[in-house]
């Protein structure tokens, strides 16, 4: 099991944002979380990644309990994520966004860097090569010297996913990757996630508002509404669930 979450709960003030959330994400699994706006989907991600500390419940990454670890330790333990509102290092180059992500594997210390020792030069060259190879896999190599913030929207999304993968995670959390994309871009994104799922030895958990993405990709889906899981199962079964339809009809736009 890559990620096992039991009874995860968080409330803000009197409002329960997430109530008793459970999840069993297998190795190389691909699951999704859907639900109307404000259902607590992003809060689940924030609880998994330590942005918020859960009130109760447990998160197990493989054998390791990461429930109350600080965010950076959770990331180093092997959970990487992207953000609903893209969070790139906008003024850094595309290449540096990736090379930065390799900081935990730098292989040299402060003194090596200070005096540019042989170790530093060897390891730094390795980091650059790895970063460029990584960018090439995502078709971003010719953009390497551009500022990340100046990329078109779709490429920023792609770079954010590439950056998350550069840390070498066991679990990848994607927070509404298709948000703000047109149908053609969504189609490319589905291809990209499928490719990532095939090429990298990891499990993916996906939050998405656009149902086609979830229908195409996910093996299993949970539906959140007001912090509660109201349905779960295969994507095709879930969308026929009357509770789910009702939750979505409460919104202005019904799912496709």
């Amino acid at each position, binding site marked *: 099991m890559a990620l096992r979450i039991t009874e995860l709960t968080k409330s*803000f003030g009197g409002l329960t944002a997430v109530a008793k959330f459970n999840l069993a994400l297998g190795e190389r699994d691909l699951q999704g979380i859907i639900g109307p706006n404000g259902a607590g989907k*992003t809060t689940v991600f*924030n609880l998994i990644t330590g*942005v*918020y500390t859960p009130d109760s419940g447990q998160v197990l990454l493989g054998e390791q309990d990461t429930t109350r670890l600080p965010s950076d330790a959770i990331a180093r333990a092997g959970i990487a994520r992207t*953000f609903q509102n893209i969070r790139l290092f906008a003024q850094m180059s595309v290449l540096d966004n990736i090379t930065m992500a390799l900081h935990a594997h730098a292989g040299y210390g402060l003194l090596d860097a200070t005096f540019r020792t042989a170790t530093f030069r060897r390891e730094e060259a390795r980091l650059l090569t790895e970063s460029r190879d990584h960018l090439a896999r995502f078709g971003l190599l010719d953009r390497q010297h551009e500022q990340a913030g100046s990329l078109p929207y779709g490429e920023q999304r792609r770079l954010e996913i590439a950056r998350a993968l550069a840390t070498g995670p066991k679990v990848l959390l994607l927070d509404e990757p298709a948000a703000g994309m047109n149908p053609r871009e969504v189609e490319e994104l589905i291809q990209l996630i499928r490719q990532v799922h095939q090429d990298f030895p990891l499990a993916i958990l996906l939050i998405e508002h656009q149902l086609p993405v979830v229908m195409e990709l996910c093996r299993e889906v949970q539906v959140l509404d007001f912090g509660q899981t109201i349905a779960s199962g295969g994507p095709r079964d879930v969308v026929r669930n009357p509770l789910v339809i009702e939750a979505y009809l409460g919104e202005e736009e019904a799912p496709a």
Partner: protein
Amino acid sequence: MDTIIQQLFNAAQLGAVYALIALGYSMVYGIIRLINFAHGDIFMVGGFVGLLLTTRLGWLPFYLLMPLAMILTALAGVAVERVAYRRLRNAQRMSVVITTLGVGIFLENFVRLTVGPETRQIPARLPSAPVHWLQQNLGAFVTWDKLLIILISLALMAILWLVVNRTLIGTAMRAVADNKDVVPLMGVNLNLIITVTFAIGSALAAAGGIFYGQAYSIDPYMGIDLGWKAFIAAVIGGIGSIEGAVLGSFLLAGVEVITVAYLSSNLKNGIAFGLLILLLLVWPWGIMGKPTLKKV
């Protein structure tokens, strides 16, 4: 007993001056999230405007002189906002903060070069006789000017509280403090609110400057020291909160008076800043401040 009461009045007088300055820091921060590093120097300018008026227009009674000085200083404060800060309202926050630093140094040097670097005292315009009643009943030697400074300051704070909580402009100010982006959509003139805030803050600081010049002395650099103390007081109380600024000011003044009375006057700055750091480590948002939730 008598010395304790005297020390209490000393602390109250110092606290009142701190509060008059601290309110300006806190109000401006509350409304545009800006640490106005030049505010201490506006306080200093207020003191010198008071000095100028008392020496040049000596025939003016105090109850007209003080409002006049407050109005003139308010104009200076508003002018600074208009010339130096307004254009940077949507720029990087640090640019504005640095601009306020520049304005502060400018004001200090301007006063030093035009008036002179000497320490001066504003000629006493408040009665300095001891308060009879306190002397007879409690044996405490407290002069009328000290008592008046405390009472007038408290009255000004009460007026401010009423303005903020009971008037239309005050409601608009609180609305801006709550959410700057929505308010213009609701037909409130943001520039007007900010101008009013700077005017009120500068006028209060001027009152503080005059009181300080009456009770102690003024010099072109007093804004740095006093301004910082008042700023600490605002932060301790929870910056952005009016009640917090007043509370923090009296607390800080109390600690300082105790330090000077029982330890050493050389230690008071160190202890003031030590207190700030300790409090911020325990209460990162000050005593009355509101914590913010990390948004991801």
